[in-house]
């Protein structure tokens, strides 16, 4: 386990490093001069120069890169020119909101997805099954910003059940979380359904039947335990997906998370914030993956470190 973790950590470091480099390069490849955004269109050339040197924008790229890496080692990702203060602090201030949203979406996905999947697996080929399998495809096809607005119009404007914006009440998370999770609910339901059917057709289920175990017990205990493994893996990935996909939903719902921060930072060429935000997302993705690997070990008795 220890060795396995070490190996995974080493991989994670490589991945994080690669992601960092990628952001660094690509952010700087995007045309648009942050200095001009900082000082506005009326600035003189001298003024631009001084801003550039303040933010280290006049150094050669490799130098900036080295400084950047050095900064990361010290936990310093630079300052946001736009928001003031450390980019990392700005990002971390926003992270809990994104996490809340992602978690809420995860809870919705799991609750609805697993229930639907299990129901479909009990009666494959029946109406519910067809509706869910077709619906899940359609769910992935709906642009989330469109869905978000439609939901707002429906539940906030016409029915007035839920707030349209973040008003501090727990109900405010429902619409964005649902919008975020919809494409994945059907997807998870399908995964659960097909795993349940696949597992249910395995010999061990027949063995349990031969022992006289009732069908419900077989599905939820015998099969359920085995489905847990693919499902848990998927949940970690889902969580990562949610954090990343929150970008658009946060904009639609004015959710004060890391996604809307990042869109704003990209538009305004606030390099430090873009880097800090992407680093945060990437790291959380990596950590989630590690977590999933560990959980895997805990719930799947078959695995040994050599399976890693």
């Amino acid at each position, binding site marked *: 386990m220890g*060795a*396995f973790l*070490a*190996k995974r950590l080493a991989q994670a470091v490589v991945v994080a490093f690669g992601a960092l480099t990628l952001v660094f390069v690509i952010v700087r490849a995007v045309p648009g001069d942050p200095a001009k955004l900082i000082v506005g269109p009326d600035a003189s050339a001298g003024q631009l120069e001084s801003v550039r040197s303040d933010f280290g924008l006049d150094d050669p790229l490799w130098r900036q890169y080295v400084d950047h890496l050095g900064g990361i080692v010290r936990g310093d990702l630079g300052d946001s020119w736009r928001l003031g203060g450390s980019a990392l602090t700005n990002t971390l201030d926003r992270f809990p909101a994104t996490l809340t949203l992602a978690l809420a979406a995860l809870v919705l996905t799991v609750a609805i997805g697993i229930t639907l999947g299990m129901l479909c697996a009990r009666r494959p080929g029946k109406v519910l099954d067809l509706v869910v399998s077709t619906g899940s495809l359609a769910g992935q096809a709906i642009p989330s910003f469109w869905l978000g607005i439609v939901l707002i119009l429906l539940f906030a404007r016409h029915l007035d059940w839920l707030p349209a914006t973040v008003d501090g009440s727990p109900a405010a998370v429902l619409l964005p979380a649902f919008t975020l999770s919809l494409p994945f609910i059907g997807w998870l339901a399908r995964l659960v359904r097909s795993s349940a059917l696949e597992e249910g057709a395995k010999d061990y289920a027949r063995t349990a039947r031969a022992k006289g175990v009732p069908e419900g017990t077989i599905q939820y205990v015998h099969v359920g335990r085995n489905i847990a493994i693919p499902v848990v893996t998927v949940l970690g990935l889902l969580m990562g997906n949610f954090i990343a996909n929150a970008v658009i939903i946060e904009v639609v719902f004015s959710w004060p998370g890391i996604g809307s921060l990042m869109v704003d930072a990209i538009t305004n060429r606030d390099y430090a914030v873009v880097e800090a935000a992407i680093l945060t997302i990437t790291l959380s993705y990596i950590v989630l993956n590690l977590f999933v690997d560990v959980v895997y070990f805990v719930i799947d008795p078959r695995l040994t*470190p*050599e399976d*890693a």
Partner: protein
Amino acid sequence: MSATRTGPPVADAALLRIRGLHAGYTVPGRSGLRRRRVDAVAGVDLTVRAGQTVCVVGESGCGKSTLARSVVGLLEPFAGSVSFAGLDLASAGRRQRRRVAHDLQMVFQDPYTSLNPRMRVADIVAEGWRIHRGRVAPGDHAAEVARLLGLVGLDPSYAGHRLHELSGGQCQRVSIARALALRPRLVVCDEAVSALDVSVRAQILNLLADLQGELGIAYLFISHDLDVVRHIADEVAVMYLGTIVERGTAAQVFGDPQHPYTRALLSAAPSVRDRPDSATEVALTGEVPSPAAPPSGCRFRTRCPLAADVCATEAPGLRARGDGEHPAACHFAGQGAAAAASAEAASVEAASVEAAEEKQA
């Protein structure tokens, strides 16, 4: 095959010579970082002469397939040499090796997985000619395929079929036709008939025997089915945990087994004809050790009814005693069967699950 050989006279030269072969796999080590070598084949010497059938028998996991795979070059040996027709395959370059490739073919256990399900029978059979250009002119492929299919007892009209339209026995025939297409001198058959039903198995065994008769092919035949081995083998090698523990002609090994493992194997094998007699049955206890951590000394000692102190310290070599070529790797191989039997009987008392069962039975 001894019983039916009618073909060309057997040249006494060794076609395949395996010396001190170590082969196997690397697996992630305990630490998960460094990889560890597992010698699934640990020091095997074996010779196959032209036109001869050599059988390797042994329990699952003893390294039979590993041996076969290193012979045909699918696996790089860790140590030792495999030389075919005088060419040392391990030291040969890719080109040299390709030159003997057609002389050395293999038939796999599962006819369905060893043939590409997406190809037509004709393409499967002709694939070798496309790789080794110049052996059969492209224009002659169709005719040659038809001839080969006829040779293995398939109607040439099958050339255009796909595998899923064929039965297991027919697939195995295609597999054999494919191996024969390059006119090999040695065919390695790894459990080539194990997946087949008895009646089909008999058809294929007959076919192999006929081909040997007609074309003088040598077989390295791997099986765990003793009935089959006894029927076709010129020579038998019994394998246990990566090593050969006994070798001899079929008559020698089956009629006068020297190694306790051979005896156990023979008595455990189900047979239609001789019902086992629980009095003479040699029951093995314990589990097969992993090739990753073989026991010290004699590899069989952990399950051996005859095991003594010497077995733990000293690995018995594969030694021939006195007359003939019938070596066995056992410290007690020289002792008569009676002595062995009494030792075995004594060991039965010695604890273990099996003993408990025996009493109940």
